[in-house]
């Protein structure tokens, strides 16, 4: 695992830690996951963990456009 990948996992884990305990995430037929489960998957970098990291990466990549759109429509 590269340093960039390790940093990304740390970032995603930090994000997940801010998620309230009462929330869960449904990822289709892969199941439903609470915060603690998701953090374990991300740290293990298994398929579920990799999916959550992909979601975060796509979010970060789209943030510039989304923010611009939000400001234009505010």
């Amino acid at each position, binding site marked *: 695992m590269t340093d960039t990948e390790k940093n990304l996992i740390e970032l995603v884990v930090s*994000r997940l830690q*801010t*998620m*309230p305990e*009462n*929330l*869960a*995430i*449904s*990822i*289709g*037929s*892969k199941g*439903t996951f*609470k915060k603690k489960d998701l953090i374990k998957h991300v740290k293990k970098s298994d398929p579920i963990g990799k*999916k959550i990291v992909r*979601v*975060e990466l*796509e*979010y970060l990549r*789209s943030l510039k456009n*989304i*923010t611009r*759109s*939000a400001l234009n*429509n*505010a």
Partner: protein
Amino acid sequence: MHKPAIIVTIPSHDDTTRYLSAWSKSIIRLANQKKDIIVVLKNKQANPKEFTKTVEKIQPSFIFFNGHGNETTITGHNNQPLVDADINIEILKNTIVYTLSCQSAKKLGPKSIKQGTKTYIGYTEDFIFIYDTKKTKHPEKDKIAGCFLSSSNQVAASLLEEKTTGQAYIDSQNAFQKIIRSLLTSESRAEQSSMIRYLIWDMKHQTCLGNQSTKI
């Protein structure tokens, strides 16, 4: 006057399908108000035999699937395959399809268009949503899940309002964007902040294949 025939599948065997089922009720109510011919395949009725029999009987112009799926399959009760890209994809011929399930617009959707489906709207990746575990007994009251499911269900609502498939897709994209904007520009709480990335994910992976100007 033309009355569209519609099939809605709503399995309800786990938390995810219970949520999809609960949030599809407003769409079913809307179809009933419009006096469309609607057959709801609920719970165990969402099985391959019943689905095939209903399609042959009513020849639907619109099928709204709620459930699980993957790149090549849409499933019903207990994840029984209702449509398989390699087995019975012709069952979608001449219909407009909206699939609220994971990944089916990746392979099954494009293949169905080649086989004569008019329009296929679905998701090329997993449909992800956040829900409040304190609301699982009343999913319809879960406003967090509602941000995801009302945006996605806008496709079906717009189609029932006699809009084109292309416009229904745009309406749903706009519904996602409206919620994302409101979360970004408000003083968001932790739960709202958690939601944005998954709303963006669903919005980006929703796709409309085939003819964009058909109506149900």
